[in-house]
């Protein structure tokens, strides 16, 4: 995910959308994308750790 592009696109859309609920939706989208990335990092690290565990070698 290109975080810089996401942030810039969200900021541009927020400036263009008048409804509060829509701007809140976009703000939450950033939070969820970051959470997804965090979960991906954790899952990848765990998979890596299990693949390299002594029991597998």
């Amino acid at each position, binding site marked *: 995910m290109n975080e810089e592009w996401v942030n810039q696109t969200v900021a541009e859309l927020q400036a*263009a959308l008048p409804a509060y609920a829509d701007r809140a939706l976009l703000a939450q989208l950033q939070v969820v994308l970051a959470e997804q990335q965090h979960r991906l990092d954790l899952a990848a690290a765990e998979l890596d750790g299990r*693949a390299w565990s002594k029991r597998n070698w």
Partner: protein
Amino acid sequence: MKTLVVVGHPALADSSTQPFLKALSQDLALWHPLAAPFDPYNERQALWQADRIILQFPLYWYSVPAIMKQWLDEIFDDALLGPDHTRLAGKELGVVVSLGRPRDEFGAGQKQGFTIDEYLRPLQGLAQATGMGWLPPLVISQFAYQTEAQRQGLAVAYQQYLTLPQPSRFADRVQWLATRLDQLAQQVTAPKERQKLAQLRAVLLAQQAELDDLTANLRLVRETEEF
């Protein structure tokens, strides 16, 4: 799904939380502020027609405000519930409760002594007695002091509380966001904005697909290691 939001507030006109939530509930739920005297016929019809009933109130001395207790006492009778008290069975009962104190004051050994769940136990009992499913409460702590980012998070959490199966999983909330982005893209008139919304939605779904895939692989590895 039809959601009914029953608002019990002793001074609704002075509340800053309730108008905020009301604006967000538009098109998602029926907003029903309580005002005595109640019309039992109308109250029953509203409750019977709802699939999800949300009791929304500020916590007053660790309980519901007087207007909501009066409504519960007067309306929740045999005429509403039926002779065997099953007329509301199968519906969902949720609570949106606002606090004047910080959330972390609620708990064993903390300043308020008990958890929010413990203070809401009588309403959970009501759900059990009437056969309604009990939803995990949505707690709003010190709305007046919340940052803009916190309020935006609350706005989405509230809309999800009104519409999503509860308790919701992370993947459900992602799908909800994707659907809302799609709806928003259909509403905007500028092609450039529509395109940007579609691109953001695509990133969200692609990343979720990657996460689902990785999680499935991980589950497989864990299961394999157990043998």
